[in-house]
């Protein structure tokens, strides 16, 4: 990666200010602009040259399925980061939503009187998503109404939601989510296990969610207001934008996306346990940042975030496949994230230099 970008950098150093970019600089800027794609392609070339099994269709599908979890979490987080906030609670929300749905499938809803209510699978899924949205709303209200800094508010919710996830089962696992025909709650394995046209439903879900998110962010007034709030909150207020409402919606979207990821993970395992998706929020934030989302707010795209999730997933799985030790995996992953941000800074500097 580094050799590729270092080569054309020599001529750019000599470009005086307010000058037209040289062809070398132009090429460098293009590379930087599409840096996530470039990194992804390089990763694929690198790993497939080492391992024959990397670039097989079955491995690609498997890796993409892993990516879908990170991508769903990261898409939600991207909404929040664009407004200038952060959501650290998505991993815990995924865990909590998994435990709520798992519990409803395994033991139903036990009413105070001792009787048990069972819900259909589709209802259970909707309840799981609702839980995610509700926790997201708590985040949003903490940030907009009580003016808690987003980092702190969602850090608090990270612990609280994880605590409730464990409390739901007193720390144990709900081992069997198959349901029974009599209760009408079979088929939860669709989300994480089954496939359509040879492609797992998890991937289809990621594609649909990403498409909806792209339309939301680029084609709706809500989307533009997200960027406005993150870019210049004061100007947004002066433009008559209800900034609190926009932020609240972003946190709710993030919560729902997290819950969806949690349901897929739970379905994939066929069991719900309280530690599901622990620390996944960090992967999600890293994916968003890799994809060009600025933590300061106002900048970022859903496509970029999804690409970022692919880089993280394909990198992790590739390292596993070629037998790199777990410890080195962490070192490489961390370095790639920091490197990506450095590349982004370089791009911004070049943009500023060549802007009219």
């Amino acid at each position, binding site marked *: 990666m580094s050799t590729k970008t270092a080569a054309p950098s020599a001529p750019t150093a000599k470009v005086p200010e307010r000058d037209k970019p040289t062809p070398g600089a132009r090429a460098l800027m293009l590379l930087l602009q599409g840096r996530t794609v470039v990194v992804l392609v390089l990763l694929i070339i690198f790993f497939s040259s080492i391992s024959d099994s990397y670039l097989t269709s079955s491995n690609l599908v498997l890796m993409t399925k892993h990516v879908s979890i990170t991508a769903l979490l990261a898409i939600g987080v991207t909404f929040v980061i664009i407004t200038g906030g952060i959501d650290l609670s998505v991993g815990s929300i995924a865990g909590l939503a998994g435990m709520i749905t798992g519990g409803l499938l395994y033991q139903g809803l036990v009413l105070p009187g001792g009787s048990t209510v069972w819900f259909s699978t589709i209802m259970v899924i909707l309840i799981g998503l609702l839980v995610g949205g509700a926790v997201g709303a708590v985040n949003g209200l903490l940030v907009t109404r009580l003016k808690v800094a987003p980092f702190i508010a969602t850090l608090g919710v990270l612990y609280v939601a994880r605590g409730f996830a464990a409390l739901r089962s007193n720390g144990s696992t709900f081992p069997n989510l198959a349901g029974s025909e009599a209760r009408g709650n079979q088929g939860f394995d669709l989300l994480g296990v089954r496939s359509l046209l040879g492609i797992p439903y998890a991937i289809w879900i990621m594609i649909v969610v990403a498409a909806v998110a792209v*339309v939301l962010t680029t084609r709706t007034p809500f989307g533009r207001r997200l960027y*406005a709030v993150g870019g210049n909150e004061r100007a947004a207020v*002066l*433009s008559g*934008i209800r900034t609190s409402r926009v932020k609240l919606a972003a946190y709710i979207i993030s919560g729902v996306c997290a819950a969806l990821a949690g349901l897929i993970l739970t379905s994939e395992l066929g069991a719900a346990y309280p530690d599901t998706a622990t620390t996944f929020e960090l992967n999600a934030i890293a994916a968003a940042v890799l994809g060009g989302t600025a933590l300061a707010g106002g900048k970022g795209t859903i496509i970029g975030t999804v690409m970022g999730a692919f880089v993280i997933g394909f990198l992790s799985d590739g390292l596993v496949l070629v037998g790199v030790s777990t410890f080195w995996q962490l070192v490489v992953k961390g370095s790639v994230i920091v490197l990506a941000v450095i590349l982004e800074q370089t791009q911004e500097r070049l943009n500023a230099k060549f802007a*009219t």
Partner: protein
Amino acid sequence: MSATLSAPVEAPPVLVAREVTKSYGGVHALRGVTFNARTGAVNVLVGENGAGKSTLMKILSGAEQPTSGEILLDGQPVSFRTPREAQDAGIGIIHQELSLFPNLSVTDNIFAGRELRHPTHLMDLREETRQARVALARLRQDIDPGTLVGDLPIGTRQLVEIARVLSQNVRILIMDEPTSALSNAEVDVLFDVMQDLRAEGVTVIYISHKLDEFRRIGDHVTVLRDGALVADRPMSETDTGWIVQNMVGRSEESLFSRTSGEIGEPILKVEHLTVPGKPLPLVDDVSFSLRAGEIVGIYGLMGAGRTELMEALIGSRARTEGTITVAGRVSTEDTVSSRLKLGLALVPEDRQRDGLVQSLSVRANIVLATLGNFTRRLLSSPGAEKSTAAEQVKGLAIKIPGIEAPVTSLSGGNQQKVVLSRALLTKPKILLLDEPTRGIDVGAKTEIFRIMSELADNGLGVLFVSSELAEVMGMSDRVLVMARGRITANLAKQEVTEERLVAASASTDVMEVNP
């Protein structure tokens, strides 16, 4: 409004602020101002910095609520709780500080908060782009509406802001110093558009500092001073002298006057100092000198580059060019610590942000710049700090509840003295003061000036920035005027007149300064 038959028929004012008062804490930004915006006219509002113009406009546009008083629109009392409510009533405002989104395109900026929709509820990007083009064409701007606003030069950004308001079909258009970032050609375009708007019956409220500009375009002029309305007349019945006189007022002048002491050798020499900026340098090839025992005032409008000049002198601006010589020694580094060593010290403009560490005590703030003097074997000596701080408090007559009291518990004037005492502890040869009297009461102002005079008499060179004509004229042995990053006048005390200062502050001609 009981019009007699002989008086010319005039439409009643479309927008009236009646007896409006606004206080922030104990500070009165506006006191009982009654302002009429005459229908279909260009109503000019003038006053010095801090006179309350921007506050009044924020109230009229719904960004702030008055503490008391009422707003009448078409004779009916209204209350705008948000900018949106004012917008819905047909009031548009172009803010002094740009309120644009640098991360969004020109089109996105123009329609932020009131996006156009398809029947499908998605945004109608095509129609937005078309309308953005129309608005830009009206301002004769040939820019792609898809360009990111952050990539545009500052003058063009200002025009985007204007385009945004124009595309809203406003009845009342408030412009708060819209020309401060515009080139002369751009100002001409803007004035053409304003003529068109007036012909269409739009009421314009125009805030400006630039006498030559607003006399060209204005129909009616209202002068604010210290939060109160002091004069209100048709433009045709005024002249420059009348306006300046009302802006400045005469009453306070006697409070600041200085009998110059003995003036010594030059101790500060600045040659070709430049602070780069986009599109124009913030400080542009500035040369001057300052002598020991001399107080030099720097006058100019907001954005003229005065603060940047001060920051360049103290070394907190990166990438400056030119030479700075203090008492014969040329500065070799662009760092604050090296400039402090050379003998420069700055009392910054924004006391709250740059001057004080709000969370620390009076003592800690006073000794902050000279901590090294109180350190014995790597440990600081609270006793020595305390006695030094106490000396300073006594010497400058700072009124404090106690040496360990939080610095935020002091009044503005006493906070300023804390900042000043910290600067003096570094034993400067040259004291730089940026708006030293901003936000402090008249009594404290007089005291700050007394201290400045004493310091000069003791052989310091004092360079101070002020936006108030009376202060600059009363306190300076010599006045430099800045406009657009350049020095446009260098006047000895006896040459200084209000008209000259105002004219030079709006001028773009570079003056050849002989040091």
